[in-house]
């Protein structure tokens, strides 16, 4: 069929008439040039595509023979630096820093808890571990490092109101107190509870002063006890003698007693 077509269109050879269109157009597979399905390429086209496929250029030395490049992750964004500075400030300014584990809480509970803690001047800060860890490792709080795993929040305050904080946290079951750093002293959860049970600082100071002042106040009375006892005995004696004088004359008695001492 292709041979007959070519013979008709070429004009050479011996057609019956010029411009002869074949009556039968034999078409294989019955589809047009542009189809909605993938159409198999003509064999010549297939061969051309196979020959002209892309071959990636290979480097002369394979990359694993060269020394490995150290990818410096120095992505110090301004934002990361700002967050680090904030964390450093927090650790410097506040007396009490408590680290708690944060399990997901409904939003209103978070707001309520923040409100109650704000009343006692305690701030709630959400922190990211990757920012806090380098700051801590360079400062003196190295022992707080193992605490910062999984989601955490920090409760920071200028005063050390452990009792109120514990009371609020008891009402929130999803926040677990892990540890605290109060006045540069690292405490565990038990330590915080004990700290909360301590009396106020002024009361403790007053108690200490009273206990210390008790002994010196006793010393002076102890030292004077001997002579005071003697004075009392003499007085008693004089009274008895005076009472005896009025009763019966006993003149040499006071001279005897004064002579004996």
């Amino acid at each position: 069929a292709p041979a007959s077509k070519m013979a008709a269109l070429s004009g050479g050879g011996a057609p019956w008439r010029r411009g002869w269109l074949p009556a039968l157009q034999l078409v294989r597979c019955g589809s047009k040039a542009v189809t909605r399905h993938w159409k198999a390429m003509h064999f010549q086209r297939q061969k051309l595509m196979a020959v002209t496929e892309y071959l990636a250029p290979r480097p002369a030395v394979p990359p694993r023979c060269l020394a490995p490049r150290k990818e410096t992750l120095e992505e110090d964004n301004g934002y990361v630096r700002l967050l680090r500075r904030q964390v450093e400030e927090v650790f410097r300014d506040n007396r009490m820093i408590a680290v708690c584990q944060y399990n997901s809480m409904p939003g209103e509970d978070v707001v309520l808890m923040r409100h109650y803690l704000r009343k006692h001047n305690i701030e709630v800060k959400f922190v990211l571990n990757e920012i806090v860890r380098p700051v801590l490792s360079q400062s003196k709080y190295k022992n707080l490092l193992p605490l910062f795993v999984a989601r955490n929040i920090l409760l920071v305050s200028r005063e050390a109101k452990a009792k109120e904080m514990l009371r609020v946290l008891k009402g929130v079951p999803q926040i677990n107190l892990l540890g605290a750093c109060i006045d540069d002293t690292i405490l565990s959860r038990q330590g915080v509870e004990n700290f909360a049970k301590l009396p106020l600082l002024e009361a403790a100071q007053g108690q200490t002063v009273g206990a210390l002042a008790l002994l010196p106040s006793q010393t002076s009375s102890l030292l004077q006890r001997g002579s005071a006892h003697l004075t009392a005995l003499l007085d008693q004696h004089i009274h008895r003698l005076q009472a005896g004088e009025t009763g019966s004359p006993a003149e040499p008695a006071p001279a005897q007693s004064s002579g004996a001492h």
Partner: protein
Amino acid sequence: KKMASKIRVVLRPVKSIVVRFCPFESNVESTRKFLGCINHKKIQATNRNCEVTADVRHDGSEPLVDVMFADGERLIMKGANLTTIEMLTALGSRCDAKELKEEQKSKKKSP
């Protein structure tokens, strides 16, 4: 690799979960993440009566997860050498098994 927060656990046959760990140790990461995942609202929503308690100690003991089931069975997972995903899948598979048993029981009772 599956993310720990995508694992769904049906807590209906569970009565209570106690997670005990010592935060100053270094092997508590998976246990803490397990606690965080369990407190997710979707998993908590499957059973509102399940109490999840966290026991924070400082005595160097190893991290422990103690699960009490409603039929009296107890599952203890020592999290020192387990990953979060392993713990969640273990708990999840046991819960599913119990659910199936309960469904079969209820089907037998009410034919």
